[in-house]
């Protein structure tokens, strides 16, 4: 315990909340691009983009986490991440900075925070007086959610 491992996090904003993901998972950060909508896809999937010849799906994180819709603007970014070999991107309001914080300052998530179910949260990081919500990316893009959607379709 307390071996003082340092985490590097990319922090970004949705509304007034600050979020963070492990920098090792982040492949690149892009400005907003032209998104092709996919019919019949789950609602939180905004569409696909052409990332230098590769087609990758884009998730609107606002929709995914139940935030209110907001128009994209100059500071809107697409964070491209790699999860288990899958490359995908998600849209955030703005990207703030890269932070280094000791792993042991991260606390387990409370049951409910900022209206987001805690299963999507890996932990809460405290930096000075800021609170960072560490997202559990795998859960956010995970299959149980997709299965639910498929089931709804099948039942209709």
């Amino acid at each position, binding site marked *: 315990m307390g071996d003082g491992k340092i985490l590097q996090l990319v922090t970004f904003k949705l509304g007034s909340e600050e979020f963070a993901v492990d920098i090792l998972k982040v492949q690149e950060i892009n400005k907003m691009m*032209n998104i092709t909508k*996919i*019919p019949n896809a789950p609602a939180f999937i905004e569409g696909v983009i052409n990332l230098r010849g590769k*087609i*990758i799906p884009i998730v609107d994180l606002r929709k995914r986490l139940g935030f209110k819709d907001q128009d994209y603007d100059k500071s809107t970014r697409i964070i491209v991440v790699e999860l288990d070999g899958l490359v995908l991107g998600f849209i955030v309001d703005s990207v703030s900075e890269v932070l280094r914080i000791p792993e042991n300052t991260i606390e387990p998530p409370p049951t409910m925070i900022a209206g987001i179910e805690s299963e999507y949260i890996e932990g809460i990081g405290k930096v000075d007086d800021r609170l960072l919500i560490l997202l559990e990316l795998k859960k956010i893009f995970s299959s149980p959610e997709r299965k639910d959607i498929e089931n709804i379709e099948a039942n209709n």
Partner: protein
Amino acid sequence: MDDQALQKDEMQEIIDEFIVESSELMDNVIQDIVAIEQSQDEEKVNGIFRAVHTIKGTASFLGFNVLTALAHKGEDLLGLVRKGEMKTDQEVADVLLEAFDLMKLMIEDIRTGGVENHDASSVIEKLAGFLVSKKKNAEPPQEEKKKIGEMLIEEKIITKGELEDVLKKQETETDKMVGEIVVEEKLATEGQVKNTLIKQKTAGKEEQSIRIDVKKLDELMNLVGELVLGKNRLILVNSLAKKEGGGESVLDNLADVTSYVEGITNELQLSVMRARLVPIGKVFSKIPRMVRDLCGEFKKDIELKVEGEETELDRSLIEALTDPMIHIVRNSVDHGVEVPAEREKKGKNRKGLLSIKAYNEGNHVIIDIFDDGKGINLQAVKDKVKEKGLMSEAELASLSTKEAMNLVFIPGLSTAQKVSSVSGRGVGMDVVKTNIEKMNGQAYIDSEEGQWTKLTIKLPLTLAIMRALIVKSEDELFAIPLNMVTELVKLKEGLLKTVDKNEVLVLRNTVIPLMDLQKTFSRKTEEKQGGYVVICNIGEKVVGIKVHSVVGQEEVVIKPLGEFLKNIKGISGATIRGDGKVILILDIPSVILHHNNQKKAYSHLRAVSASAMN
């Protein structure tokens, strides 16, 4: 230390090579044995003998002793066959097949575990038994190679008369070779004789080929894909420059470059595609053996005819085609062709016929699988569909014979059929169809009850690049595979009618069901008037797809949507256009399925299969 490790690596490389080579050889050998069981073919026997000899040699060098012993005995028996001292009747073929199956298993053992795990003693004994009992006398084998003199005549270098003179001369000067005398007599130059000698040595050898890592080819294909995109972009820039103006010479240059790049890209694309093509015989090669075994299992007597093995297909398709083909052939033997006694009663030839034919048609490969078995009982199929509540009586009545025939592809239908065995076609035809459609292909069936069944598979030559029609629905562009499109109709007053609340298109007195891309895919509902209908032909079905406008034909590079989005209904992939924008490729069969949601049949089915899968 390092040295040893290096040697180990090298050894592993040799072993890997051996596994690849011998697996390939074994597949050919097994196929050829089934062939020589039917009719003795000297060349095939020699081929088998050589293959087994090669495997024996390498195996013994690598120290796989059990495999070596088995191959050795097999070679002995084949030696007798080769010399004509033994006939390949069913018994001999059986034991040889047993031996080679075992050899295949051992090679697999070596691949997975490094040593052969199977015991060969019983099979070796069997082979030895044959060697003792079946030996009989026969003529010694004939000389395989052609004589140099004969070859020179074939090459039209010397005449027959000249050769006879030379041969006479050789009788007196016995230490001289025919070639030498020919040169001495100035009948031919030294070069000509040398060339002929080389030809003599290489005669009978197989065509040259190299083995390429598929990964490398895939990379190459990807690059070509990019190049095609680049070409598209250049074309776009060219047209832009034309529109917006620019110096005359700039335009000329651009036009020049464009046409150059276009030409070279097309050629490169073609040749890389060709490099990926593999003869379909790879898939067919397993069939004779399978039919033979199945005939034994089900007590059937079937003549198998295979045509067009040289027809070429993309490698990835070959792999994906194997399972469906096995399925179809199994079905034909199991449920299609009747047992001999039953056939005789029906006044058919005792021996059934199963014919498999592959051929090219434009940019497609067609595979016909025909059997003269009991065919499809249409009424039974319809009854089943009705019984399952998949379609109403009226719907069934409105189907054409061909459409009704293709009901056998509905999932869930066939399983029940097998249990009650009302009709011929057994399990999993829906899987066959789905697999074929995944390859952008089509599958349809035709039959005459009591007489025959023909299943046709239509596949594109390659998966990576295809021609597509780009259409616009609202502001979104979509690509429709051109191989499905038969015609375009501009919408005019009076062409559209409503039948049963469904919109249809009346074209040259035929009624074509319509689906509106906007309604199926869009979240908006406001109607936009006018537009086009793209008539698509899927198997025996004709449908019209309503779109707002048509952009044109384009060559598109198919990109998968990835793991995350692979099951989106109605979309088979995406492509990137010249301007970098992603557009979606429509999966027409599934679009129709999706559209037909109001037809309870399919949605009901999907719910059933979804709950079955959970």
